[in-house]
């Protein structure tokens, strides 16, 4: 049965090789925002046919535009997905699958005595944000400017995972990361009401306009309510769309 599916998909891939599909051997390549690392590893555990790749959404889109082979793209905001669609690198219809919010995170024990968003402007603190190019960075910039906080930034990290790691190592005193990353990494969080209204949406789309059945199955896993992918997202703290 499995081999029959594989050979059918090989034929399908052979017919649509111009669609830029990575599914030549029946495998499905899923490009996902780095904040989805644990969710994807949970969902695809034991499914060797699926290869997840993680990076900042903007990096993934740049790679796709440059001709990287993938079947499914999942970004952490609408802007990066829109760019992929506008560039013609994604031909499927994007679907909103989850939302995420930013939190003010500190290393365990909050050594910098951070009490609120305004503390990010304290020069004595080592503060990190995501670079404005990546979704968590543009969201952070938006939230900070609306709250009229001018942060004293020490580093602009290329993706949310790099930022999370530097906070958890205690090299940074505070930073704005996704709620889900903070909880996965065991960071302490400080309540910042200014962040509550700022959320971004996670979008999934097929790279090809006519995805192979196994590619569509991966997408359905996230778009269909009650499916394993959607359940895993909520279990890791992502919000329902």
């Amino acid at each position, binding site marked *: 049965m499995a081999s029959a599916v594989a050979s059918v998909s090989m034929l399908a891939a052979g017919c649509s090789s111009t669609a830029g599909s990575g599914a030549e051997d029946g495998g499905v390549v899923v490009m996902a925002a780095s904040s989805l690392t644990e969710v994807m590893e949970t969902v695809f555990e034991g499914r060797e046919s699926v290869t997840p790749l993680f990076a900042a959404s903007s990096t993934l889109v740049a790679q796709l535009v440059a001709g990287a082979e993938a079947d499914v793209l999942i970004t952490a905001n609408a802007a990066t997905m829109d760019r992929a669609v506008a560039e013609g690198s994604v031909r499927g219809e994007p679907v909103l699958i989850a939302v995420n919010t930013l939190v003010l995170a500190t290393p365990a024990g909050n050594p910098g005595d951070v009490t609120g968003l305004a503390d990010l402007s304290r020069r004595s603190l*080592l503060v990190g944000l995501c670079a404005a*190019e*990546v979704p968590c960075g543009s969201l952070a910039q938006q939230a900070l400017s609306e709250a009229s906080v001018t942060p004293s930034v020490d580093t*602009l990290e*290329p993706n949310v995972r790099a930022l999370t790691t*530097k906070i958890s*190592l*205690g*090299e940074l005193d505070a930073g704005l990361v996704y709620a889900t990353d903070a909880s996965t990494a065991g960071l302490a969080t400080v309540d910042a009401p200014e962040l509550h209204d700022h959320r971004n949406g996670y979008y999934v789309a097929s790279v090809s306009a006519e995805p192979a059945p196994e590619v569509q199955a991966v997408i359905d896993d996230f778009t269909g309510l009650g499916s394993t992918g959607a359940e895993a997202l909520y279990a890791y703290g992502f919000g329902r769309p």
Partner: protein
Amino acid sequence: MSSPTRVRADPGTEPRPASRLPVPLTWVGFLALGLLLLPIVGLLQRAPWSALPSILGESEVLEALRVSLIVSLAATAACIVLGLPLAFVLARRRLRFPRIIRAVVMLPMVLPPVVAGTALLFALGRRGLVGQWLDSWFGVSLPFTTAGSVVAAAFVALPFFVVTVEAALRQAGDELDEAAATLGAGAWATLAHVTLPTIRPALAAGTALAWARALGEFGATLTFAGNFPGRTRTLPLETYLALERNPEAAVAISLVLMAVALAVLVTLRDRWMPR
């Protein structure tokens, strides 16, 4: 032997004429050359030539250039100050585990830069093995500072200087040094007037290689020193971010980095490297 005046090789030791090379060897050789050239051609054909001056005149690019020059030159200076003594120790002292020590010296050349950056964080970060004492005793914290970028660049560039100079020291031998000593020259005088002039080409080559490596350093810098304009964002970091925002700018900056590196290497071969 490696003095700037070239010794005329006797005709018997001239390279064999090309016609006596096995033909497939020549083909594969040119294929390899093509492999090295192709990415450069790829970059050149995507270069936004007409927009080049305006892109390179952008304030972010100039700022990154300034940080790059400061960081790479400081790292090169560190490589000379620290690397020269190390090269002497490796070449002239009887060491207990020479192979292991030499492997350790060369490790940063093969270590993935991101791993190097993480290792630096564990060692010299604010919570690192040594970094925590730097922080509590002197209030010095290296990550996210220009000094941190210099440390990262020096870490990856040091082996290039040490390996080059050590090889020259070994090749030069110590007969001249001993002769100078018999004639009554002190250790420092021998070093300054005999040893260092003998290995001058290697010193220049090692310095240039270390500088080129420091200038192109990316992974260790980003991981250890972070990324902030005017402080730690060097040209390679600017290129990486520009790739997502404005690919044309990324190509333009890459062209500059490539031109500089090429100029260094060409000058090196012409002026100092024994051919």
